[in-house]
């Protein structure tokens, strides 16, 4: 658990953080979102003491982070940044192994961990001996995620980690990360300015502006109360449509199948169809046609919008 209390940081006369309070529960993925300069990166970087706040405190598992030497603290917290920052003179293996090595893990344990992580992120084993310049942007980013996860930290800080890759690769790596997070249940603080990325990955979203958190809630709840003018304009009036990405057709039909159709894709199908219906095949083989009412009915069933 991370608890941030009354955190203040000024750069000259610019307020990056203005008495910020935030509690992040164990195993939750919290996405900090907002325009450039809203203080989201500063907030993230004050968790591993990359930024020294002017006042206020950060507690990790109810321990003030000032009680740890910065290096010790940072080795316990995974760190992943936009430009990846892979070490160009190290191989993929050495890049991933760097934190476990500092923590003096045994060679066998490191090797096992690297294998596990490369498998988890979908990197082929042959890549171990490659150098970063031989990797594509998406592959480098996966190695960056592996490096952040290497010492099995409970907390993961990610500062626009997928910002520099092309849109196609980004969707793939986001989905991969979402699955990894489902499996590993890390406490993740994730900075982005991309609303769709936030909707897809977040357990909770914190919308920031001028060093303040204007709203902090689950992605679904944000749709219900966007009373704050800025939040509404930043998330967009079409936010409920973006939100559809989080839901899968299986959720709607309340069944298990390997259909990968998300509800925004279903909506697209309905818009395309002349009578507004999309016919799908159920897991048991029977066919069913879905209409817009089915969608709204599902979404308002338990206030899920």
């Amino acid at each position: 658990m991370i608890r941030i209390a009354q955190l203040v940081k000024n750069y000259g006369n610019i307020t990056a953080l203005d008495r910020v309070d935030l509690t992040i529960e164990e195993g939750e993925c919290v996405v900090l979102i907002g325009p450039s300069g809203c203080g989201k990166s500063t907030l993230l970087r004050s968790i591993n003491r990359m930024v020294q706040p002017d006042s206020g405190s950060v507690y990790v598992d109810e321990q003030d982070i000032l009680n740890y030497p910065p290096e010790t603290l940072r080795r316990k917290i995974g760190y992943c940044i936009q430009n990846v920052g892979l070490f160009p003179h190290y191989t993929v293996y050495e890049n991933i192994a760097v934190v476990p090595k500092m923590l003096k893990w045994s060679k066998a344990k490191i090797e096992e961990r690297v294998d596990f992580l490369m498998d988890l992120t979908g990197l082929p084993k042959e890549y171990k001996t490659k150098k970063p310049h031989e990797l594509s942007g998406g592959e480098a980013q996966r190695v960056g995620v592996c490096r952040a996860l290497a010492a099995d930290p409970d907390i993961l800080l990610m500062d626009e980690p997928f910002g520099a890759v092309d849109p196609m690769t980004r969707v793939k790596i986001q989905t991969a990360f979402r699955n990894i997070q489902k499996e590993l249940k890390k406490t993740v603080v994730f900075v982005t300015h991309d609303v769709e990325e936030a909707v897809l990955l977040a357990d909770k979203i914190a919308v920031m502006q001028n060093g303040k958190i204007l709203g902090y809630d689950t992605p679904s709840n944000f749709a219900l109360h966007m009373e704050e003018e800025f939040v509404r304009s930043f998330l967009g009036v079409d936010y409920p449509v973006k939100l559809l990405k989080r839901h899968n057709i299986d959720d709607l039909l309340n069944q298990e199948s390997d259909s990968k159709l998300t509800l925004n894709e279903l909506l697209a199908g309905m818009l395309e169809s002349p009578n507004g219906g999309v016919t799908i095949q159920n897991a048991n083989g029977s066919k069913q046609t879905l209409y817009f009412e089915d969608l709204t009915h599902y979404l308002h069933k338990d206030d899920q919008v």
Partner: protein
Amino acid sequence: MIRRKFRIDLMLTFYFIALLLWVFGFESFKGTLASLLGSGIGLVSRTSLPVLTWQHIQLVALASSAAILVSLLLGMIVHLTRNEEAESLVMKLGSILETIPSAAVIALSIPLFGYGNGPVLMALWVYAILPILRNTIVGLQSINPSIQDAATGIGMSPLQRLLKIEMPLARPMILAGIKTALVINISLATIGATVGAGGLGVPIIAGIRSYDPLLVLQGSIAVILMALLTERALRS
């Protein structure tokens, strides 16, 4: 990349063989050269060319190693202070040292070290510092900030970051500085003969004093070949 490492460098081999031939074969073909240049062979210096070459190498190696040691340490310390003022101050100091004429450095250090190798070593050391120090500082400064951020963020101490990440990445730049320093020193070491130091400057100075082109050639060719060899060996 690996293949390139093991491939025999033709130019390097050529310079090396040429240098060996000149240094060890000079005695056997000096007669021919003397008749071509119209100078007398009797005037050839008393110390043999291999010995002079060895003295020359010793002078350059000693002064350059001391300069490498000091510049690297100073460069790393300045970098660790993370103080831009300190960095520019050190660079300025280095540039000022470089502007002092070499003859002046040698003359000024005679009272300290007396005649012989001392003043020359001092001059060579002073001149080798700037290129190495400048390249160390610039090399460390020009590392991609996100690599530095990542190194700090995953929990490296400033010293770990310097030794494991920054120094290896600045290495090509530092090597270029060392190369420049060595090439400067190889030619500069010749003026040592004016204050009684050994080395390849001895025949050159003697040749100038006695109007003997063969003597000048004897030292100069060896110096040129040595400089070319070094340049080639340390090229990136």
